[in-house]
């Protein structure tokens, strides 16, 4: 009898420890988000969005150039990664069981796990080294390579959410595969694919390491794709390790903006996926 009591007590304790684990994980989440909001929200002002960085020693200024730079980098990355990633995802969803598809799927998953700094090195050697100049394009290429596997996998999964009845209906009417994909499957999967792109953007928007030696940094307004360009993340890094209080303040403001951007993107994506799942449930 006492043995059974002991077992029940052990079970209770173990269950409580599991609940504790959730609490332990939520503590840093709350601490970090709380601190970013506390430090960042207060430092965020109109000048932050509209002004350029001031020289060392002068208080004030903003990160207008870095915000613009991040947008440019993401645009270049999306331009590269979205077509490749989506079409690859379509192939995986349409021919799910071929050996080729399994290998590609595996490659995409492995690519997803390659450290972003390594991707940065490759972008450096492909784009920066030949012309011996850091450039926005190099940064965009690095981010694009990071985006591809995410776009591939989310596109594939979200196309698979399209009810098979739709596909079968199209094929039964005598449509070829190309036609059924273009006129039936893609329109049905489009919201899902857009969601996948959002997820991928949210993931790479916060990347710093691959930009350090590709797009480098630029304290001035630059619209040239072949010149170094500033970015929110690299600017935060530069300011964070500097000894100036006002730069620290701006680093927090940048972090706040970045976190809000990424959280919004991922929450929107999450809600969209959930709606799609509910809509397509058989």
């Amino acid at each position, binding site marked *: 009898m006492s043995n059974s009591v002991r077992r029940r007590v052990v079970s209770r304790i173990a269950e409580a420890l599991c609940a504790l684990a959730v609490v332990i994980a939520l503590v840093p989440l709350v601490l970090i988000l709380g601190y970013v909001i506390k430090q960042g929200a207060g430092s965020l002002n109109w000048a932050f969005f509209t002004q350029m960085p001031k020289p060392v020693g002068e208080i004030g200024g903003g990160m207008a150039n870095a915000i613009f730079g991040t947008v440019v980098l993401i645009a270049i990355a999306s331009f590269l990664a979205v077509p490749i990633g989506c079409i690859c995802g379509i*192939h995986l969803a349409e021919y799910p069981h071929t050996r080729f598809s399994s290998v590609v799927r595996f490659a995409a998953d492995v690519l997803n796990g390659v*450290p972003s700094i390594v991707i940065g090195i490759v972008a450096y050697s492909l784009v920066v080294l030949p012309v011996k100049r850091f450039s926005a394009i190099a940064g965009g290429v690095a981010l694009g390579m990071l985006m591809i596997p995410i776009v591939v996998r989310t596109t594939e999964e979200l196309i698979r959410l399209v009810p098979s009845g739709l596909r*079968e209906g199209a*094929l039964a009417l005598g449509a070829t595969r190309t036609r059924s994909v273009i006129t039936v499957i893609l329109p049905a999967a489009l919201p899902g694919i857009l969601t996948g792109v959002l997820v991928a953007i949210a993931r790479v928007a916060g990347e710093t390491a691959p930009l350090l030696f590709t797009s480098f940094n630029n304290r001035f307004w630059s619209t040239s794709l072949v010149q170094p360009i500033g970015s929110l*993340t690299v600017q935060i890094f530069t300011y*964070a390790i500097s000894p100036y209080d006002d730069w620290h303040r701006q680093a927090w403001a940048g972090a706040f903006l970045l976190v809000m951007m990424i959280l919004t993107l*991922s929450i929107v994506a999450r809600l969209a996926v959930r709606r799609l799942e509910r809509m397509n449930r058989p």
Partner: protein
Amino acid sequence: MAGAVKAPRSIDDRIFRFGTGVFAAIVLLLVVGIGFELFRQSWLSITKFGLHFWTTRTWDPVAGDFGALPFIWGTLYSSLIALMLSTPIALGIAIFTSELAPRMLRQPLAYLTELLAAIPSIVYGLWGIFVLVPMVRRLELATPEWLKKVPLFHGPPLGVGMLTAALILAVMVIPFTSSVAREILKGVPMNQREAAYALGATRWEAIQVAIGFGRTGIIGAIMLGLGRALGETMAVTMVIGNNPQISASLFAPQYTMSAVIANEFTEAADELYLNALVEIGLLLFIITIAVNGISRLLIWSMKKRVRVAAATAPPPALVEERAA
């Protein structure tokens, strides 16, 4: 799904298959290409130093003598500590959000913990510098003298160092392990637990049975976390102290492979120096490819087993509906 209905075979379809296949091949090519580029750019260093590079600890750009051992040590040591801290917590989360929590709370709690993965590395680093480092420094100052004699706690109370880096890494890795482990546990067929309950098992014992069934996948989930920890750059660079020394001490400032690349890449003036840094990147690439590859294979073989188990399960009325 597509196999259920045979599409008419036409030229059109063949073009479609080939055309989309080309884009799929680009992804394959990318992985191979990355490996090739890294090899090419580090060739000078590989041929000059050979194995010497991995086993020595001089890092002298001026004399052109490079040994990467301290960085390898730092990467492995920090990842190992991080994993020891994160694994129990991540598994606890996976169990709680798949088996124990009230149904209403499962999804929201899982989502909240996964938000940890949405915070960018640079923000972890920023928080690390300004909040965690001072906290760890206080902890180090409060460490009693006798404890500091133990090699594990030897060293000056700087705040930056191995402990801070490992703590941040642990937090960053948790969501990766917990979300995959949760998927695995959700996929374990109900009859495994029901059989345990039928034999009089307590709830925890039934969970252990489920974990036993899913162990392959759970090991995969832990390795996925390891892969993340090994390659993490910014947060670690900002708090580990960047001092190339091999020390068992948690309080000592050390250095990692990714951190040395991040710090020195832009100032690597001569070719040999650059090649040496790329060679570190190459090793990082090989290690993470191996770790991630094994992890994915484990998770896949687990999912296959789950499907087989589901196909041979008792009447569906008894089995709770679960997505594999």
